[in-house]
């Protein structure tokens, strides 16, 4: 790479251009700039779904930012956690805003991740060569649920405490290692301050570290491979219409992101996230405890399980079924390849996907009722 001498006179450049020059001279960003300028996004009637990934990423970053701000006031001990959140809501300037955005944002983030996964599934963007993108994405979905589950306990209020109690009972149903799993998760045989410490460590250190790795992989793969085009569009033929990623696609992305942050701010102001009452382990469980909406399907499904089936406890079967579903979810690209020899098999896969989705969607409705 030819060495360039630093630019001579500063007056001939605008501040933005001067900054660019400065960066280029020191970080040799030329080839990256080239890549960014070259990156094209296919334009067709399904292009709108391409925005979902970026939206999920943006919402994740919002969670990280608000989460770091919350870290400055939150105290992860069972005697002080609730009070510290109460303090944030009442006394810290704009504490209510940061906390409500974080709580609402968590739900919107998980929702967008689900929709992103569903759209990728139906658009079959997981086809070769993007199988690993799907696998890392599936893992990211599980990580998102893990964030949601661990974060839910942190305010240490009644709802969170009992929802966690019920939730950590599920791993205990795994055969053989179930009780060990549950103990590791809870930091003991029951949900206590030790559980709070563990979930806090999970939520702010362990899960972020793992997410960084897989998110980095996921994004790298997307950048390296470009956006997938649905087969239907490919078959239509004609000249491929594209738009440059920078600035066209990015600006449209930003419109969406601005709308998202506006929605979150509005939710925070009109529907501030409830704090409730501090958890009292000795009080009886309140009527109607349920987990967050993204776990309602498991919660409701567990209710339909019979007590025993062929001598195996129903809950164990439920947990095994969950494990099977998760495994299938991760391996969809491979299953699809195996089945796509016959086109009707692919249609069957699609139908199964649609059926599962309908069930998943209806269960929370039933569960919330």
């Amino acid at each position: 790479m030819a060495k360039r001498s630093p630019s001579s006179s500063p007056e001939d450049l605008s501040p933005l251009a001067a900054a660019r020059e400065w960066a280029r001279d020191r970080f040799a960003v030329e080839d990256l700039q080239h890549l960014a300028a070259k990156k094209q996004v296919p334009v067709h009637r399904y292009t709108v779904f391409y925005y979902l990934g970026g939206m999920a990423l943006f919402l994740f970053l919002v969670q990280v930012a608000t989460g770091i701000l919350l870290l400055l006031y939150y105290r992860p001990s069972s005697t002080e956690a609730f009070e510290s959140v109460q303090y944030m809501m009442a006394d810290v300037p704009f504490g209510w805003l940061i906390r409500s955005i974080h709580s609402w944002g968590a739900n919107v983030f998980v929702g967008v991740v689900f929709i992103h996964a569903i759209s990728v599934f139906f658009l079959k963007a997981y086809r070769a060569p993007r199988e690993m993108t799907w696998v890392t994405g599936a893992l990211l979905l599980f990580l998102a649920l893990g964030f949601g589950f661990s974060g839910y306990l942190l305010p240490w209020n009644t709802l969170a405490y009992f929802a966690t109690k019920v939730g950590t009972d599920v791993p205990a149903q795994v055969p053989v290692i179930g009780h060990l799993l549950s103990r590791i998760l809870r930091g003991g045989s029951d949900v206590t301050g030790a559980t709070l410490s563990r979930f806090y460590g999970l939520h702010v250190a362990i899960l972020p570290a793992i997410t960084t790795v897989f998110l980095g992989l996921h994004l790298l793969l997307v950048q390296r491979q470009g956006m997938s085009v649905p087969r239907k569009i490919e078959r239509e033929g004609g000249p491929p219409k594209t738009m440059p990623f920078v600035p066209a696609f990015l600006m449209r992305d930003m419109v969406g992101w601005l709308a998202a942050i506006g929605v979150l701010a509005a939710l925070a102001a009109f529907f501030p996230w409830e704090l409730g009452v501090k958890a009292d382990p000795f009080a009886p469980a309140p009527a109607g405890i349920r987990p967050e909406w993204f776990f309602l399907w498991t919660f409701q499904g567990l209710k339909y399980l019979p007590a025993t089936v062929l001598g195996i406890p129903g809950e164990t079967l439920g947990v095994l079924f969950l494990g099977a579903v998760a495994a299938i979810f991760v391996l969809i690209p491979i299953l699809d390849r195996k089945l796509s020899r016959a086109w009707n098999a692919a249609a069957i896969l699609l139908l199964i996907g649609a059926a599962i989705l309908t069930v998943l969607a209806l269960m929370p409705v039933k569960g919330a009722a």
Partner: protein
Amino acid sequence: MSWLLGTSVGATIAAFVYPIVRYLVPPESSEPSLTEFELDVKASDVRPNSGRIVPVGGKPVLLFRTAGGELKALTAKCTHLDCTVQYREARSDIWCACHNGTYDTKGTNVSGPPPRPLKPLEVKVRGEKITLKLA
């Protein structure tokens, strides 16, 4: 147009940065704590053989100074039917006006309907500052 875009982006960023900067500055009120509570009352305001009700964590507490000069604190909800008790100067004891329940300065229920004693709180005094701690 670029000017409009630049200005509105700048203003929006400012609208995000302003709350965050305000958030980072800690408020005047004391740190949240479940166990220790600083009172607004000054130690010298509480005369011997007198008492008053102070809010502690949203609940009433009877802060009083015995005739001998010792500053003490007890929960102020009568254990009978939850009326707020008061310090009775004439007899240097604690009395509940609702049904004539009486407690001594240690909080022990000595007469009347109250079934249980009042709970004591630890009192720490540094100069004029009184801090109460749940025992």
